[in-house]
C-alpha cells in the first residue's frame, strides 16, 4: 500500500514539475528560455546570491514563519527545484553577497560576515563578524544593498531618508535644504574594507554621492567599475500641481543606471533626469520649473528607464549559458511602480540592456515578464494585486539566472535550453 502511495506521489510530482516546466512558472521569456519555480513561500526574499557550488542564499526583509531571515536553498538532485531549505538569523534586511566562503549579509544598520564550510553550510550562524556597524537607517530607504569589488572592498548603499531633501520631508511647499545635509551620511555609496571588523562611518569612505536610493548595484568585472540603479524621486505632481500633471508625474523622472567612479556625484536632490529632454533638470524644491537645467557637477546616467519602476537589482551577466548577446550585458529587476497612480503601474519585470566595450550597445528590453500573474498584457493597477515582485538577481555557476520575489517569497530559475 505504501509503495502504491509513493508511486502515486512521485507521479504527481512528475506531473506538477512537467506542467510547471511547460508554463515556465508563469513567466513570459524570449524564445529558447525556460523557467522553473526554484522555491516558493520562503519569506520576503530581497537580494539573493549563489556560491560556486550552486547553493543559493536569500536575505529576507523580515524573519519568515520559521523565524529565519537568511534562507539557504540547495537543489541536490539538480531538477531546477530546490529540495533542501534551511535558514538562520533573525534580523530583517536586503543585502547579501557571497565571495568564495565569505557570506556577507546586511541589516538596516550593519554589515555582517559569515563563514561557509566546504558544503556551503554556515559555520557561525549565531556569531558572525560585524564588518560595519551603526549606519543610518531612518525608515525611508533604510535597506542596505551591498556588492564587492575584486579587492575585497564592500560597497554599501546608504539611502537618503528623504524624498527631495526638503526642510520638512514630503510636505507641500517646503523648500529644499541648501546644501542638503543628508548627503554627509547618506544618499550615496560608502566603501569599507571587507575583512576589517567593527568599522564605522569614519573608517569607510563616501565613494559616490548624489544618489537618492540605490537598491541595485553590481561590480562590473568587464569595466572594473561600480554600476548602480537609482530609485528616482516621487510626487512631482502632489507638491507642484501647477508644474506637473498626473501624466507628467507618471513619466518623470527617469529611473537611472550610473557607472560610479570614485568621487562621482549623480545630482540628487538638486536635479532629476528628464527622459524626454534628456537633461538634468533642476528640482522644483530648488527653484526648478521643469525646464531649467542644473547639476553642472553631476554625471549623466549610463542608461535610463520609465519612471518609478523601482530597479531593485542589477546584475552583469558573465555566464556562458545564454546567447552571445547577453554576455556582459545588464539584467535589472524592476520591483514595479506605485507612484504612477492614478495611471496604470509599470515594471514588475526583469529588463535587459546589452553592453559592448563597457557601454550600452542598444535599447533596453523586457527580458522576463508575467511576475504580476495578471492575464495577457493587463497592467498592474493596484500594487497589492501583483502576485510576485522581482527584487533580487543572481547568476548560478552554470550561467542560469535566478530572480527573487519579496511578495510571495518565490525564487525563479531561468535557463537557456533551445
Amino acid at each position, binding site marked *: 500500500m505504501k509503495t502504491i502511495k509513493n508511486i502515486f506521489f512521485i507521479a504527481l510530482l512528475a506531473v506538477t514539475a512537467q506542467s510547471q516546466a511547460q508554463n515556465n512558472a508563469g513567466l513570459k521569456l524570449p524564445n529558447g528560455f525556460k523557467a522553473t519555480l526554484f522555491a516558493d513561500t520562503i519569506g520576503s526574499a530581497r537580494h539573493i546570491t549563489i556560491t560556486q557550488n550552486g547553493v543559493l542564499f536569500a536575505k529576507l526583509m523580515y524573519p519568515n514563519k520559521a523565524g529565519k531571515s537568511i534562507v539557504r536553498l540547495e537543489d541536490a538532485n539538480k531538477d531546477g527545484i530546490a529540495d533542501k531549505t534551511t535558514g538562520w538569523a533573525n534580523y530583517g534586511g536586503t543585502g547579501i553577497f557571497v565571495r568564495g566562503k565569505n557570506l556577507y549579509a546586511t541589516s538596516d544598520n550593519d554589515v555582517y560576515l559569515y563563514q561557509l564550510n566546504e558544503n556551503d553550510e554556515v559555520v557561525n550562524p549565531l556569531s558572525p563578524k560585524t564588518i560595519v556597524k551603526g549606519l543610518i537607517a531612518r*525608515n525611508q530607504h533604510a535597506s542596505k544593498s551591498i556588492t564587492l569589488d575584486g579587492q575585497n572592498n564592500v560597497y554599501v548603499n546608504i539611502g537618503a531618508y528623504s524624498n527631495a531633501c526638503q526642510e520638512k520631508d514630503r510636505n507641500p511647499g517646503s523648500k529644499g535644504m541648501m546644501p542638503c545635509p543628508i548627503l554627509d551620511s547618506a544618499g550615496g555609496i560608502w566603501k569599507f574594507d571587507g575583512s576589517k571588523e567593527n568599522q564605522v562611518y569614519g573608517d569607510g569612505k563616501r565613494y559616490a554621492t548624489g544618489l537618492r536610493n540605490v537598491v541595485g548595484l553590481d561590480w562590473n568585472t568587464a569595466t572594473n567599475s561600480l554600476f548602480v540603479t537609482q530609485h528616482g524621486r516621487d510626487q512631482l505632481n502632489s507638491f507642484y500641481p501647477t508644474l506637473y500633471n498626473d501624466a507628467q508625474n507618471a513619466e518623470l523622472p527617469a529611473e537611472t543606471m550610473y557607472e560610479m567612479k570614485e568621487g562621482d556625484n549623480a545630482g540628487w536632490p538638486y536635479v532629476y533626469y528628464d527622459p524626454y529632454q534628456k537633461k538634468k533638470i533642476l528640482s522644483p524644491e530648488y527653484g526648478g520649473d521643469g525646464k531649467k537645467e542644473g547639476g553642472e557637477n553631476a554625471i549623466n546616467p549610463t542608461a535610463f528607464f520609465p519612471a518609478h519602476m523601482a530597479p531593485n537589482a542589477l546584475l552583469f551577466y558573465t555566464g556562458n549559458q545564454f546567447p552571445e548577446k547577453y554576455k556582459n550585458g545588464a539584467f535589472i529587476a524592476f520591483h514595479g511602480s506605485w507612484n504612477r497612480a492614478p495611471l496604470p503601474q509599470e515594471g514588475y519585470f526583469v529588463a535587459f540592456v546589452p553592453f559592448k566595450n563597457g557601454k550600452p550597445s542598444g535599447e533596453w528590453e523586457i527580458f522576463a515578464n508575467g511576475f504580476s500573474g495578471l492575464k495577457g498584457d493587463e497592467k498592474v493597477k493596484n500594487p*497589492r494585486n501583483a502576485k510576485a515582485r522581482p527584487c533580487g538577481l543572481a547568476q548560478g555557476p552554470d550561467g542560469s539566472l535566478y530572480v527573487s520575489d519579496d511578495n510571495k517569497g518565490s525564487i525563479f530559475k531561468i535557463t537557456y535550453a533551445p
Partner: protein
Amino acid sequence: MLHKMKVKYYKYCFIFLFICAFSNLVTAQDLVKGKKIYATRCLVCHQADGGGVPNMNAPLDGASNVVGNNISRLVSIIKYGYNEKVALDGFYYSNAMTANPDLTDADIANVLSYIRTSWTNKASKITLAQVQVVKRKK
C-alpha cells in the same frame, strides 16, 4: 445636589442631540468631497483600491485603525503626516506620509468619512464636530 445633577444631565443631553444633528449632516455630497480629496492627495500612495503598497504605504482598506474608534489619532495623522516605525496590523511601512496642514476641519471629516466607508470598510462617518472636539483637546 439634585438640581446640579439635573443641569449636568441636560447639558449631556444637549451635547448628545447636537452630535446627532451633526452626524446626520454628513451628506452624500460630503462623501463626494471626501473622495475628491482622496483622489488628489491620498490615492497616489494608498492607491485607488485603498490597498496601499506592500511594505511601503499602509493599506486603508480593511485597516483596523482606520475603521476603529481612535478618531483623534486619525485626525492628527491627516493633519501632521505620519512616519513612525510601528506595526500596523502586523506589518511595517517605510514611506513617510505627507502632512496636510492646509486641510480644513470639514475637509478632514470628509476624507475620513470617505476612507471609513469605502472599499470593504463599513465604519461610521466622521462629523465636523468630532474633528473640532479633537482640536479643542490639543
